[in-house]
């Protein structure tokens, strides 16, 4: 086994980032390939770690003393963190390659007429900022310590701020600020919760949190955490930032934004549900109800959108709520399903968003009413979009179907003993129909029908291979996980099942 594997996975992107920054004028447009290469390497490392755990190896634990006496960087690679990190990393890799052309195009539009040196500076800037995303995601996934987790949460927020402000769409600076404030808002609550835990336990270690069980303060600690994390997850009524942010950010990081929001579901499982399962019970039904409200509200909101990017944004609101429904049901099966759904959703959303990006990249049009009939000109893009729509709506053979099925098995298990949960479950499965509605309606409006006259030009065609191939591979990955879910479930189950069965 590779030494310091987790440390490498987290910090190699950061080191690559520094490297790109230092050599920015020499590297220029090669930055995308370098970033992609470094992420391919970390993906390889993650596959090694995955394989090791899959074969029943022990959890990977690494600890580094940062400052005497007790500030440590504690990292844990187990069956829960590795799949999350792996999928997030794969998405980062896919989007790094996807961005090679996209960023080029974006800079041409925003910073029209700049000289080559400044161009290189902007181009490399995208990548050295971008690489902090994988660092942040890997950091959050592997943190065994609340403070370390907080650090990576904030790192993501700051990275997002700069990327958005430099490369976003029309109101990018204002929205970047809004996004930063929301990010800090949730991180502050996370920090407050962590400090409350520290006040009770004298430690930030996640492994110590079970000692809080039964503590009268636990209820309030969970409340503080959930308050912050709901804002990150964009659960109704904390969702208002999502449409803005998704509408204005550069589409090439859209998939990462879905991870940015949805990773809070992982944090909830890791920090709250697993260690404090019994104390968390009171939150179960309210979370389910909130989730189902968000699902329906988000779907209707999506249907009302005419901006292709906002469609994807509002759909994220509704989709994230699905995984929350699974968590809220609080059965072993539903939590494992919810986590699997989280992974499936971020893959689906990456496809959906990035394909929307392909359309915007090619046509320069965001208003769906001005699009139509593109399937004739862009068959691969159309096919990818249909796959994205199927992934969001939970169609087999994609992993979201399997995940949804496992999750709802858990939800109905809960429903057998609780009629509210049963009603929520039935409404929940019916709400999937709204997803089918808006996702396939968008397919129809954008790709089917007669081709609009202003789209006749020769420039309207499928984008270059570096943009399509990574997405096609991602679709293939989703199919593999959907057809052979053991790959994920055999990792998740020992951790989640192992933590819950005794209680």
């Amino acid at each position, binding site marked *: 086994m590779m030494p310091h594997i987790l440390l490498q996975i987290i910090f190699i992107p950061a080191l690559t980032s520094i490297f790109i920054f230092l050599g920015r004028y020499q590297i220029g447009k090669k930055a995308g390939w370098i970033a992609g290469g470094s992420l391919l390497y970390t993906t390889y490392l993650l596959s090694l770690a995955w394989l090791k755990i899959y074969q029943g190896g022990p959890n990977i634990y690494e600890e580094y003393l940062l400052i005497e006496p007790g500030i440590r960087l504690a990292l844990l690679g187990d069956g829960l963190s590795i799949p999350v990190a792996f999928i997030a990393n794969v998405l980062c890799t896919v989007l790094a390659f996807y961005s090679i052309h996209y960023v080029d195009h974006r800079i041409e539009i925003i910073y029209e007429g700049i000289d080559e040196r400044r161009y290189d500076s902007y181009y490399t800037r995208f990548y050295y900022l971008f690489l902090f995303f994988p660092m942040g995601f890997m950091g959050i996934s592997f943190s065994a310590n609340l403070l370390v987790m907080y650090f990576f949460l904030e790192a993501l927020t700051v990275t997002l701020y700069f990327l958005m402000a430099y490369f976003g769409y029309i109101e990018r600076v204002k929205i970047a600020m809004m996004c930063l404030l929301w990010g800090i808002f949730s991180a502050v609550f996370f920090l407050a919760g962590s400090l409350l835990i520290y006040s009770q336990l004298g430690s930030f270690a996640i492994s110590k949190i079970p000692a809080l069980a039964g503590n009268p303060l636990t209820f309030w600690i969970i409340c503080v955490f959930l308050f912050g994390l709901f804002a990150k997850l964009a659960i109704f009524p904390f969702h208002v930032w999502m449409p803005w942010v998704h509408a204005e950010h550069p589409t090439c990081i859209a998939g990462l934004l879905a991870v940015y929001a949805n990773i809070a579901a992982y944090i909830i499982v890791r920090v709250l549900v697993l260690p404090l399962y019994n104390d968390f019970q009171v939150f179960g039904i309210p979370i389910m109800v909130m989730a189902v409200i968000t699902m329906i509200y988000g779907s209707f909101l999506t249907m009302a959108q005419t901006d292709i990017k906002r469609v994807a944004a509002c759909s994220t609101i509704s989709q994230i709520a699905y995984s929350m429904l699974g968590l809220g049901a609080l059965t072993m099966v539903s939590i494992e399903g919810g986590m699997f759904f989280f992974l499936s959703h971020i893959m689906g959303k990456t496809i959906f968003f990035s394909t929307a990006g392909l359309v915007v990249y090619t046509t320069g049009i965001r208003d769906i009413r001005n699009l139509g009939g593109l399937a*004739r000109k862009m068959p691969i893009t159309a096919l990818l979009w249909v796959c994205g729509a199927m992934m969001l709506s939970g169609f087999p053979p994609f992993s979201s179907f399997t995940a949804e099925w496992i999750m709802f098995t858990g939800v*109905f298990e809960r429903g057998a003993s609780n009629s509210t949960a049963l009603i929520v479950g039935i409404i929940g499965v019916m709400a999937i129909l709204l997803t089918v509605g808006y996702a396939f309606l968008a397919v129809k409006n954008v790709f089917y029908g007669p081709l609009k006259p202003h789209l006749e030009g020769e420039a309207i065609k499928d984008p270059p291979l570096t943009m399509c191939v990574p997405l096609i591979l991602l679709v293939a990955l989703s199919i593999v996980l959907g057809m052979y879910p053991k790959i994920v479930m055999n990792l998740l189950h020992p951790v989640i099942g192992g933590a819950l069965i005794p209680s």
Partner: protein
Amino acid sequence: MDIQFAWLCLIFPLVGVGLTPVLARIHPTLRDYGAVFFSGLAAFSAVTLLPYLFDQPSKLPIESVYVWLDAPIKVSFGILIDPLSIIIANVVAVISFFIMIYCLGYMKGDSSVMRFWMLMNAFIGSMLLLVLANNLLFIFIGWKLVGVCSYGLIGYYYRDEQKYWIGGPPPTKYAKPTDCGLKALIVTGVGDMLMLGGILIMFYYARTLNILELYQTSAVWIPEMAKSPGLIVLVSVLLLAGPIGKSAQFPLHEWLPEAMAGPGPVSALIHAATMVKSGVYLVARLIPIFYYGYWVAGCSEALTFFTLTAWVGVITAFLAASQGLVSLELKKALAYSTVSQIGYMMLALGVTGFSQGILVSGYAAGVFHLVSHAMFKACLFLCAGTVIHTAHSIYMHEMGSLKKYMPYTWFFMTIAGLSLMGVPPLPGFWSKDAVLASCLASQNYSLFIAAVAAVVFTSFYTTRMMGMIFYGKTSENVKHLEEKRAHLGEGYRTQTFACGVLAIALLVVGVLGLKFEHFFHGVFEYNLVEQLHLPVQHAEGNASHLFVPILSVVCVLLGAVPAYFLYIAGKWNPDTILQRSSFLQVFHKFFWERWYIDAFYNWFFVRGAVNLSNLVPPVAEDPWDKVVHKWMPSFITKGGYALLRFMRADTRDLTYNVGYILVLFIFFIIVTVWGLK
């Protein structure tokens, strides 16, 4: 001759999907014949399973199982071969193969035919997965996949060119293929999702989704489920929603008439012969469970499943047949007929639970009608495809006297049409007779009367259809085509061949009809009674034996004779009769508007959802966004600034300074008083 063939049956079409793009790169002809070849292999594999039914029924059921997932829930994937799955797999694979042969001619020259072949083979593979899977989850996977393929094939002409629009003629609205595809996906989706709920609730109690295990352990889990009052009713409703949606039964039947927007053979394959039967198949799969629940475990709620199935079936049979009476579009008339005929199958399966004497006869009747319907309806649709191609019109009133141009198609379509009407000795007669006999045996006479009324309607609309296409006056449209010297004749040889094979098969099955009926009866009796140990009573010889066939023939005549005079002999003019009678006009309008159900759904669900979604931003999202992103920040910044202004010591305003001092004093006093306490 073993279970490997069942696996191959499933795998071949999927291999075909993968290989089609490769073959397309080599040569277009290879692509076309390759696709048909793989469906042929699937058909061959299915046929190799048939000997089990004849020689070794005791060896059935056979299962082949692989563990698919073991944590957090254990699910195995496998194949189940039993009489039901063998029969339906053969219907699917063999009829699909002939339809694929037909497509060789029909799709000639189509620019995106590769997509067509891939979707067709994907459909066949998914349908076979649905039929052969041993487990409700995998049945559901196949179920969803056939839905997606059907969506892709209905909307095959995705450019929505006007020539592919259906509906009309004005003032009735047209529908575009892509809208129709979406409609099918969503309407069947309603059923799918509810069914998923039902399956999962059942899973909670049974802890398995394996069909045989569900049967075997029903003694344990059904009573357990019955402890929660109303739960079995809920599960029955949820589980039936899926078949109701997929098999286009009332109230989820409205998608099928629009599903005809796809190419002709697609309508034949998916929306007549196979996919729409999956609901019937699933109901047949579930019957042993609910039958056990009602007749053995004594859970009275389990009867809901049967009552609901029977009533949904008969209402649909009647409703759709009535709409078929007035339809002008050829394929839509056939679609209504499909909906109506599936209603009969549901009816037969529904009455199985009404009494212990009907289980086997009802079950066998439902499946027999499924098989015969698949044959004659596939043939009708394929012939319709050729006719529409020739007449360059989807409307029957733009055809007329086509018999002289296409004698073969006329002959084949007549055989299939007579079978649909229920004319002896064609298969439709035997199977419909069996359905009616089971229905009568249930002694539920209101069901029986409605079913018989639908027979009259069926006979009328079929005769009308044949008359309008092949007899009567030549329409202006056909005259115009003649003047243009357009090709007015048979389709490609592959098309005629496929229709011919199906028509001959109908004749053969028809002549051996009674034997087939007995065969089905015997096979299912062995399966349900001997193997699954379901209790039955053997019916005493009853009077219905001759009564039903005679009544059935009388009803056929009741419908066919007036239609003959109206549309074939041309003695009466239907338009004049309609214009004279306001009574008939009301009914005509009501049936033409599809009982206003479609209009209601559009108004309530489609417009409702759109209006609701348009309301969300102005009513909820924007105001809340304003509160969070405008008022709150401005409150914090402006309020903070005002607060700062209040709080600074040097305000140059005496009132404020006095105020501060006062507040400070009060504070000190409170603290002191508190401290003294």
